[in-house]
């Protein structure tokens, strides 16, 4: 098995360095590479986003600078660098300055446990999945800090919305992450990816995705990831018509760029986590013979998921805030809890493993069908009870019929 840190520190030790120094240099190089992936990746992602969305909207997108306009994002970054850094007079200086830094910090930290190929992972923590869950909270905190410290009512309101949305969708997302952990019995990201091999006649075609066993969990994770990365069906926090721009109204120049960077990277990394947990990570044909191929497979899958996210963004209208909260708490959470319940029971059935997997799969489909059926009936009944579904909830019962005038 290829393990970059062991190999590099061994090489340095052979040069005559003591073990601690060799390990330190190795880790520093690895961390530097990972940290600098971020900004470069963000430029690529912004270009992809612009191209995909302009294609959906029947436009050309950036096409002036360089072939297919690939230097446009870099030019924009340089432009942002030369912009004035305006700080509102009454802002809370410390929180205002820390917020964009923390946003990027939380996102880059999650790179540490993402396996790019077998063994090519920053550090294979034994609490990998939990580590990712913990890092999710830093983004929430930075958004709230930015909203609160800007001394702007719209920013504050957006900050509250961010917290409500991200907290609500964190529960189904984390519970959906429990599915692969239950199957594999490990929280190491590399081990979860390694588990998803499929051997046919002794040859690993690398397509034993957990998404084939627990498709409903993968779907729930994807929906929650859209909400967590503040993508369009759930982008209430920057609803332009209501909140001007969201929690970063008062930010300009490079600080604004940091929020932008964090948002793009966050949606990509959530896609990468989804690929690792549900779509095999670096698994693919010939990956046993040539481990470095894993990088190619992994990146192809990640960018595919990212393009699908942008596709959703270009297609769906924005939901209302009460619909969004209802969807998280009344649909996704019960659904994912029932799925986990069934998976726990099915994995303990006294039958061969493959029958267990088939029963988990069938259970997934059945549970989704039943829950959506029951909830659909419930919500339709709710709509009938309130008679006029388009009426705001706060006005229900307060509207009186117009008094009948005699002799009319």
């Amino acid at each position, binding site marked *: 098995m290829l393990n970059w840190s062991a190999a590099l520190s061994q090489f340095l030790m052979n040069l005559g360095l003591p073990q601690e120094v060799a390990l330190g240099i190795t880790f520093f190089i690895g961390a*530097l590479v990972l940290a600098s992936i971020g900004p470069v990746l963000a430029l690529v992602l912004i270009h992809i986003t612009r191209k995909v969305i302009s294609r959906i909207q029947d436009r050309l997108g950036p096409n002036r600078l360089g072939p297919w306009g690939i230097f446009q994002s870099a030019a924009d970054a340089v432009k942002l*660098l030369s912009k004035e850094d305006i700080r509102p*007079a009454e802002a809370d200086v410390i929180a205002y300055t820390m917020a964009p*830094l923390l946003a990027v910090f939380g996102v880059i930290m999650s790179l540490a446990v993402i396996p790019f190929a077998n063994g090519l992972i920053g550090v294979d923590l034994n609490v990998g999945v939990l580590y990712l869950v913990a890092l999710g909270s830093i983004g929430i905190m930075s958004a709230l800090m930015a909203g609160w410290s800007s001394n702007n009512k719209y920013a504050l309101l957006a900050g509250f919305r961010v917290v409500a949305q991200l907290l609500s969708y964190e529960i189904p997302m984390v519970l959906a992450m429990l599915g692969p952990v239950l199957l594999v019995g490990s929280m190491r990201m590399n081990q979860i990816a390694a588990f998803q091999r499929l051997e046919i006649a002794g040859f690993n075609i690398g397509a034993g995705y957990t998404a084939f066993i627990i498709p409903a969990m993968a779907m729930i994770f994807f929906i929650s990831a859209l909400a967590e990365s503040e993508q369009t069906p759930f982008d209430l926090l920057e609803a332009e018509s209501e909140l001007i721009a969201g929690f970063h109204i008062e930010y300009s120049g490079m600080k604004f760029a940091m929020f932008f960077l964090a948002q793009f990277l966050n949606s990509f990394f959530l896609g990468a986590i989804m690929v690792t947990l549900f779509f095999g990570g670096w698994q693919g044909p010939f990956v046993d013979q040539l481990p470095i191929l894993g990088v190619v497979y992994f990146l192809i899958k990640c960018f595919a998921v990212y393009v699908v996210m942008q596709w959703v963004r270009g297609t769906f209208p924005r939901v209302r805030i009460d619909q969004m909260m209802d969807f998280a708490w009344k649909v996704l959470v*019960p659904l994912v*809890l029932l799925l986990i319940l069934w998976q726990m029971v099915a994995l303990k059935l006294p039958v061969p493993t493959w029958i267990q997997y088939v029963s988990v799969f069938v259970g997934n489909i059945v549970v989704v069908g039943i829950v959506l059926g029951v909830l659909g009936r419930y919500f339709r009944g709710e709509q009938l009870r309130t008679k006029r579904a388009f009426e705001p909830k706060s006005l229900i019962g307060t509207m009186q019929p117009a008094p009948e005038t005699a002799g009319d």
Partner: protein
Amino acid sequence: MLNNYAFVLILSVLAFVLPTTAVVLGWILGPKRPDPIKVSTYESGVETIGDTWVQFKAQYYLIGLIFLIFDVEVIFLFPIALAYQQLTLFGVVATVTFVVILLMGLFLEWRKGALEWQ
């Protein structure tokens, strides 16, 4: 084992230095011509009225509380998931009961109207 966290520590320092460098660079390169209008609160050209840090609805607080309950319960589920393959029948029954209680708690919150957004 502790070596792993050394890597996380180094990465955390770099992950903090990188955006700081960018922000400081932007601060150095950008013009600095603040004036009272520019640094005032931006509300699409409307004069801001009153204090910003006003009271908002308590619903956000309620959502925070429910999240806290669920998040702690999730933290309990992860160790169980790790050891699930070695669990005995008693452990399985206990886990299933735990998840069922979670579900019942959710329905209780639903019935009590804590999940209604208004």
